[in-house]
């Protein structure tokens, strides 16, 4: 990734950005997000298959904004998040420089959000078969057992909110779970509190989630919460056709078609 390092260093030298958000070496074989502010430190930047954390989450974080204009190392999942953040008015084009990385690990420039969308149109979100299978399997369980299954799966959740913190689209200043006027859902991490939290989280990502799996990767208890958002992605596709971030299209839930089809309203 010498190109990446060169490009990043150049950006810092020319002061066109003040910080480069990228991946660096972590504990043992892990990689971690690093924030390079000196051109000299750019060789710390790495990129390989271990770099899975979605760095877009840092674009809306107060601490990182303080560092100045960022350049961000952006493989596909990060690009999707950036585009969705743009759709939701959280980013403007001159807020950042994007160091795009293709699935072939090649560096690619983007001069506009539109150009990201064009690029992504050839890299559509696809839910891996192993997941579609799992989801289908879960949905085939009798409803009561399915409920029991999820209660059990969610049981280890102690509400550290790592799923929320790691999600680039959970950028609210105050999460509804922290709103106690009214107390929408139980803050406690008992079965009801956990169930309500994960339903709320998934619903708030309905039609927005870009399937980066950051929530699942972040969960210290390894709860398969990404299955919920994935199944909702399928629902979006099945009911409203296309999905994935798009600048001209509204978010799925803030738009509608008079002839949206459903089978359950009497």
């Amino acid at each position, binding site marked *: 990734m010498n190109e990446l390092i060169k490009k990043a260093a150049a950006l810092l030298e020319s002061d066109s950005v003040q910080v480069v958000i990228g991946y660096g070496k972590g504990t043992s074989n892990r990689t971690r997000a690093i924030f390079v502010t000196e051109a000299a430190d750019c060789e710390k930047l790495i990129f390989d298959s271990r770099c899975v954390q979605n760095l877009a989450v840092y674009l809306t974080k107060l601490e990182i904004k303080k560092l100045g204009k960022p350049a961000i190392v952006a493989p596909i999942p990060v690009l999707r998040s950036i585009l969705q953040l743009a759709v939701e008015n959280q980013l403007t084009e001159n807020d950042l420089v994007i160091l795009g990385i293709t699935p072939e690990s090649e560096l690619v420039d983007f001069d506009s959000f539109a150009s990201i969308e064009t690029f992504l149109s050839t890299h559509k979100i696809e839910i891996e078969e192993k997941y579609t299978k799992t989801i289908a399997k879960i949905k085939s369980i009798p409803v009561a057992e399915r409920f029991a299954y999820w209660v059990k799966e969610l049981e280890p959740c102690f509400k550290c909110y790592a799923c929320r913190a790691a999600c680039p689209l959970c950028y609210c200043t105050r999460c509804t779970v922290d709103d106690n006027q009214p107390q929408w859902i139980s803050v406690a991490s008992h079965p009801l509190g956990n169930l309500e939290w994960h339903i709320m989280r998934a619903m*708030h990502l309905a039609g927005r989630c870009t399937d980066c799996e950051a929530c699942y990767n972040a969960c210290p208890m390894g709860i398969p919460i990404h299955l919920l958002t994935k199944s909702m992605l399928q629902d979006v596709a099945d009911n409203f056709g296309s999905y994935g971030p798009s600048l001209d299209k509204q978010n799925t839930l*803030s738009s509608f078609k008079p002839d949206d089809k459903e089978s359950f309203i009497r």
Partner: protein
Amino acid sequence: MSKIGVFICHCGENISATVDVARVAEAAGQIDGVAFSTDYKYMCSDPGQTMIRQAIKEKGLTGVVVGSCSPRMHEPTFRKACQEAGLNPFMCEMANLREHCSWVHDKSEATTQKAIDLVRTLVEKVKLNKPLFSIKVPVTKTALVIGGGIAGIQASLDIASAGHQVILVEKDPSIGGHMSQLSETFPTLDCSQCILTPRMVEVAQHPNITLMTYAELEKLEGSIGNFKATIRKKAKSIDENLCTGCGTCITKCPTKKIPSEFNTGLGMRTAIYVPFPQAVPNKPVIDKANCSYYQKGKCKVCEKVCPTGAIRFDQEDELVELEVGAVVIATGFDIMQPSGFPEYGYGKYKDVITGLQFERLASASGPTLGEIRRPSDGKIPEKIVFVACAGSRDPAKGIPYCSKICCMYTAKHAMLYQHKVHGGKSYIFYMDIRAAGKNYEEFVRRAIVEDAVNYIRGRVSKIYEENGKLIVKGVDTLLSAKPVEIEADMVVLASAAVANPGAEELAQKMHVSYDSYNFFSEAHPKLKPVETNTAGIFLAGACQAPKDIPETVAQASGAASKVIILFSKDELSRDPLIAVVNRSPAPVFSTCVGCFMCTSACPYQAIGEELITNRQGKVIKKVAKVNPGLCQGCGTCVAFCRSKSIDIQGYSNEQMCAEVVALLNND
């Protein structure tokens, strides 16, 4: 600590017959925060209301729940009663014990228990009610009317006569619109010009009406009561104050062969022109596209001959900003050019014309001075064929809807023809005759019976020329599919009425919605036919859908009356049950993160942006802001807001949650 008063109504026996009202009142008394509860035969009666007023005063109630009929029935009554006793009216709620309980259940324990649950639910809600005050928006009592056809003229005159200022904007050099092109009008056959022109003059002379012809809307900002409109006054190249309208320039203008829009191409006009003799204002404009000076840089004949020196070649478009309180859209319709129907040969054969062209031929002020003559050779047609639905009700090649006016004007055309060309023969190919309207059916009958117009139920398949005749091939499907062939001298196509080309762009400029045909959409198909989704903007005439003159005039007056109602007060006062974006202490300022999903979801464009700045004026945050003048209080935005930063007064998140909890926890 809230002190709630609960008042259970017997409604004569309507409620007490199936609900144990005494027990409901007693149970309500047990609810935390209820300071007073009672039951009475008729709560809405004067003694009943007095009971409420007294309790408010004596017990110092902070909220009231009336358990009686539907709030849709008496909510205003009881809220008024509370107000009279000094309690904010919005601190009063109603539990629907009649329509939703006593009338739909038999007398039983469960029925009484349900009544108690409903009351408890509303008590818990009212505890969280906040005093609300109706929203006051100042009103600029000037109306902007866009379009100077009969709709715009009617609306302007009505509003102006009610004593309010009106600015009438017309894109053409003269007002009058399509109606001024018409010959006679159905079903009375009185001359269109004769009834229209006096009104045009009235507009010009009305002290409250400012007329802006040759002008278009550039931009519209603001909201109901306080719009800011930017109008582009296109350069007329004359000084209107100096011009006397003597017309010398027109007679002397060397460029004379320009097809006249007014005469639908059947007549010619000069480069400096007034569209028609009775134009208002009757002062010429220079059509830059066709003026040899503007095109080739020399001529200036008009300048030389003008006795008052009114010609201004250097004149430029002018942008004027206007403060207006309401807008009436009256931009009318357009005629679909039947060129999309090669089988009719329009454009190929000179003597195949549209209905509007026929109007010009039949008009005394028209190119033929009212004589029906063929455009090709000026001969009087002995046989004439009218084709109804030439484009309408034709999803395949035309438009799926019915243009509504064609049946009638075609009958009128045939009739006029028969009156003007004695011994002439007229045929009308039609699908159905739609003559619903006062004296309409009778009118069509007259055409058939008295004027011997031949109605042929069927479609025309082909029209072609053969030694000076137009051969019209069709079928008569009335009894059997019998092929028909007519050797006609002239064919008139009742071409469809469609939206104006500029309609879509205009709608977007004004943020009003429009349908798939680019006609402007009314706010409600039944109950709000002249309103648009944007408060303060109203619709008149064919810009909403094809209409005939009486309908257009009626709707125009309807729109005008809406404007007059709006202008009847200095401030418009609106229900405070609207959405608000929260405010919280610095450094957060508001929990809104500005994703603006609410904005895209709002049906009323009521949600805009607000920039929050620090003391140094630096922008810290961009959040959503609800325009109280536009918000209708549907609350769709509230359900969208992930961070619960937007809430709706009177149906707040806290209130709704409290209701849910109270309804489901009955111990």
